[in-house]
Structure formats: structure tokens, C-alpha cells
């Protein structure tokens, strides 16, 4: 079988990422291992949004809250595990807290979508925004879990004995493995029957209904899968920072995820990684010089829209004949 450009890009990207920690250690720039971990967590979140937007055709502003809810789920379970008296059984194992974050993301996604999908276009955008803000204020007002001060975790989740996530390099490789798995799942999903149906709905939903597809249900499931991905990204982020605040659920966060998706390429398999990397690297590099680093981001966004309207991810994929 001949590997296409998409595969080659993925192989090269993963190899470079695998080599990143040793290179960073050698050049004494370990700081960048943390940056790269953040990029990978956001890459999963952006890929999730890309599934919803690029394949499902749903422009959602609720993705930030799903990411935040995933982060809070992990943090809350971890904090509860250290308390003597709790009404929630806590857990510190990543095998419980991370899937829990995905489950919460999926269920919230399902709930939000089940109502939002009764509307269309700009109304859909607005109602997902409303749900995002509702969740924001929910966590904002939960005094038990820090309210607007946010919630800290004493330590990262336990994954496997002998595999200490406290070590930034180990944690980076775990994030890389999860990202790789997520991308593979995304690839399979997009080419499955389900993915084909999503594509059909994005192109021409009324015709899909006329063909006999209950399009509502497919979009609902798509949104829930995107929610699970966002929840996982949230679990990784809170583990990296050992802290989560309602700021992570701010609707600006949903906007940031959208900007990342557009930078990386709507509907592009590697759009999540490229979009998250472009955004965060620009932020990282420019914010060292100026607080107004978003000017640089604006320039990048304009350049991408003008010269690579299908996003950075599309630069590596030949256009269909």
C-alpha cells in the first residue's frame, strides 16, 4: 500500500515529537517540553472541535466549557480522594479520572446538542454560547471547589506503577501517545460509515433526510464524541497545570479553539496539531516580547486565510482532482 501525504506528515510529526524531549534536555530548554505537552492537549481539543465543525458541520461555541468540565471532573475527583469525609468517591488513578472526564464531556455534549440541534446556523452558535456561559457560571459559583479562585490538584494522576507522571518528560510521552491514539481513532471515524454520513450531512442535510437518514441523531452522536475528546484534553491540561479555574470555561476559550481549528484547517486530520501548535507557539514566542502578542496572531490568521484558506493542514494534502 502506498502511504499518502497525510500519513507521511503524521509519521514525521510524531518522530519529531518523540525526539523533542532529548533535544530539549540536551540544549537545556526543558521548558519547551511543558509547552509541547500543552500543544498536545490542545491538539486533542481542537481535533474534537474539528470533528464537530469540520465533519459534522456544526459551528459550536460550547467546546471550551466541555474542555473545562473535563478538567474540573479530574480535579474534583482527585481532591475528593484526599478528603476524609466526602459525598463523592474520589480517585487519583488516571484510569478512573480521565475516562470520567471524557464521560462528563460526552454527556454534557449530548445534553447541549440535544437542545441546540433544534436550531440552525447563527442560532445554533448563540445557543451553544449560552450553554457555555451557563457551565462557566456553574463552576464559578461552586464555592466548595474554589469558585472563581479555581481548584488545585496536589499531584498528577496515577497512571501505572513505575510511570511517574510528575516527571514532565514521562507526562509528555503519555500525552503524545494519547494524541496519537486519538488521531488514529479520528482517522478511522472519518472514513467509517458514520463519518461518511457526517460528510453527507455537512454537504447537504435536507437530501440526507430525504435519503432516509435521521440526521439529528448522527449530529448528536458526533457532538458527544467531540465532547469526550474535549473532556480528555481537559484532563490532560489540569494534570499539566495542577490547577483549573473557571477561566478555562470562558467563552473566549471556545473562540480560541475555533481560531486554532481555522489555523490548522477545518476538516483536516492534522489540523488539530498544526492549529494548536501555531497558536500556542506564536503566543509563547511573542508574549516574551509584548503583552500585545495577539497582533502577531492576527497577522498569522490573516495570512492563513489569504494564502492557505483550507488551513495549515491542507498544505500537506494534495487537492482532490
Amino acid at each position, binding site marked *: 500500500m502506498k502511504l499518502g501525504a497525510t500519513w507521511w506528515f503524521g509519521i514525521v510529526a510524531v518522530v519529531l515529537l518523540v525526539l523533542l524531549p532529548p533535544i530539549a534536555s540536551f540544549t537545556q530548554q526543558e521548558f519547551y517540553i511543558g509547552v509541547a505537552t500543552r500543544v498536545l492537549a490542545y491538539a486533542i481539543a481542537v481535533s474534537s472541535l474539528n470533528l464537530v465543525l469540520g465533519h459534522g458541520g456544526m459551528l459550536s461555541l460550547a467546546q471550551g466549557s466541555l474542555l473545562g468540565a473535563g478538567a474540573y471532573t479530574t480535579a474534583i475527583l482527585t481532591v475528593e480522594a484526599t478528603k476524609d469525609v466526602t459525598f463523592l468517591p474520589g480517585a487519583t488513578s488516571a484510569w478512573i479520572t480521565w475516562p470520567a472526564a471524557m464521560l462528563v464531556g460526552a454527556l454534557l455534549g449530548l445534553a447541549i446538542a440535544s437542545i441546540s440541534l433544534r436550531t440552525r446556523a447563527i442560532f445554533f452558535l448563540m445557543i451553544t454560547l449560552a450553554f457555555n456561559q451557563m457551565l462557566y457560571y456553574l463552576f464559578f459559583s461552586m464555592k466548595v471547589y474554589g469558585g472563581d479562585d479555581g481548584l488545585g490538584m496536589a499531584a498528577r494522576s496515577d497512571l501505572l506503577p513505575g510511570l511517574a507522571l510528575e516527571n514532565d518528560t514521562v507526562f509528555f510521552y503519555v500525552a503524545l501517545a494519547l494524541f496519537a491514539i486519538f488521531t488514529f481513532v479520528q482517522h478511522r471515524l472519518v472514513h467509517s*460509515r458514520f463519518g461518511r454520513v457526517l*460528510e*453527507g450531512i455537512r454537504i447537504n442535510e435536507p*437530501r440526507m433526510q*430525504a*435519503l*432516509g437518514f435521521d440526521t439529528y441523531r*448522527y449530529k448528536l452522536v458526533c457532538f458527544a464524541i467531540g465532547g469526550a475528546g474535549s473532556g480528555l484534553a481537559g484532563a490532560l491540561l489540569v494534570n499539566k497545570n495542577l490547577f483549573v479555574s473557571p477561566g478555562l470555561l470562558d467563552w473566549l476559550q471556545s473562540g480560541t479553539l475555533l481560531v486554532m481549528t481555522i489555523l490548522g484547517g477545518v476538516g483536516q486530520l492534522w489540523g488539530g496539531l498544526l492549529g494548536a501548535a501555531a497558536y500556542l507557539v506564536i503566543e509563547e514566542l511573542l508574549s516574551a516580547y509584548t503583552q500585545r502578542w495577539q497582533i502577531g496572531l492576527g497577522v498569522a490568521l490573516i495570512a492563513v486565510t489569504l494564502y492557505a484558506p483550507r488551513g495549515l493542514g491542507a498544505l500537506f494534502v494534495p487537492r482532490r482532482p
Partner: protein
Amino acid sequence: MSPVLATTSLRKRFGGITATDDVSLDVAAHEVHALIGPNGAGKSTLIGQLAGTLRPDGGTILCNGLDVTHMPAHKRVAHGLARSYQITSTFRGLTVLDNLVLAVQATAGSSFRFWRPASAEASLYDRAREVAALVDLSAREDVLVDHLSHGEERQLEVGLALASRPRVLLLDEPMAGMGKEESARMLHLIERLRSSTTVLLVEHDMAAVFRLADRITVLVYGRVIASGKPDEIRRDREVREAYLGAAAS
């Protein structure tokens, strides 16, 4: 023989306009039943209600003896009712074959399958190729629909509706905007469908209608003014006055 598609006293109003006014219609199995009438007679409104995209205000629709009046459009397909559109509605950016595969997928088992590539399902592609052959598009399977001629796209439009092996096919002006040669091809296509399905045909091309139809129903201002065999319709004075005019004499 009991009709495969029947409406009784179907009514639909848009504000002050009665688009469907007490329409009772019987379509028998394996007939080509034409629905004709001047512009604004409510033909497309009727098709919309039969297909399930428009909600009737009153009356019932029976499909194969089952009351489908309030059934959503996508469920009617499973009961053997499929439609084509007056304005071509295909999947841009996909090939002819991929368009048809999507259509086949709709009634070939669950599509809540997330892992196996659809391209590995030979049965989907076999059926899609069968449909492509049926609508004379075998040679154009790998062409993007964006590059099809108008006539070819109309053939695909019918093909999409045929993929589910409907027992009743609603064809909304399949020959709209076609040249002579393209119309002739479409006419042969509908002729071939007669053996496998029942067709309710909305069409403005009177020559085609009178050649194809076993029975014709004439709709004017939302009302059925006549229904019968082509000869009867041609002789019907009310129809000639209201619609056919001198062209039919």
C-alpha cells in the same frame, strides 16, 4: 387492487392561500401516475407532503396501507417512499459513485458504525454501481458531480432516489431544464422503472407525460379537477379550458 399510495382529503394552507385543497389521490402499484397542472397548482406542495417535508393541515396519507401522515421524512424511506427534487440536490465535492454509496447506505443496515472503513464494504459499492448503470452513469462513476452536465446530474438525482429500492418513487419534474436528447434519455429511464416500482411523476413536458402515464391527475389551484386515463384527460373539457388549451387538440 389496493393503491400503494393514497391520500384522502389532504389540505395544506399557506396563510390565505390553499395550496392543497381536499386532494384525494390513488396511485396503483406499478403504474406511472402523472400529476400535472399549471404553475402554482400546488404540485410541489403535494409532493412535499407525500415525502414528509411539509406537514399537511388535514387529511391522511397512506403508503402501502400504513398511515404515514405524521411520519418524518427519513422514516418514510424505510417504508418504501423515496423522492427526487425539482431543483437538483446532490452532494457537491463527491464523485457520482460516492453520492450513490451514501444513498445506498441509508437503507443498507445501520450507519452507526464507527471503525470499519466504508470503502471496505463491497456490497455498498456493488449496489451503487448497479444504480449507476440503471441511470446510465456507469461511465461517469468517478467524476465529481460538480463536473456533470445538467442532464447527467438529473439522472443522478433520480439515481439517489432509486438507491433505496423504493416501492413508490416521487419524481418532481425530472426533465426540468433538459434539452431534447436529455429528455428522451430520461423518458427511457422512467419507462424502464415501471417494472420495478410505482412512479408518481410531476412533469411539465406534456409529450412525455402522455407517453409515460397510465393515469393522469390534473391539479388546478390546489384542487383535483380531473383524474383518469390519458385519453380521458385529453378529452376532458374542464382540463382543456383550465390548462391544456390548444396544445392538446
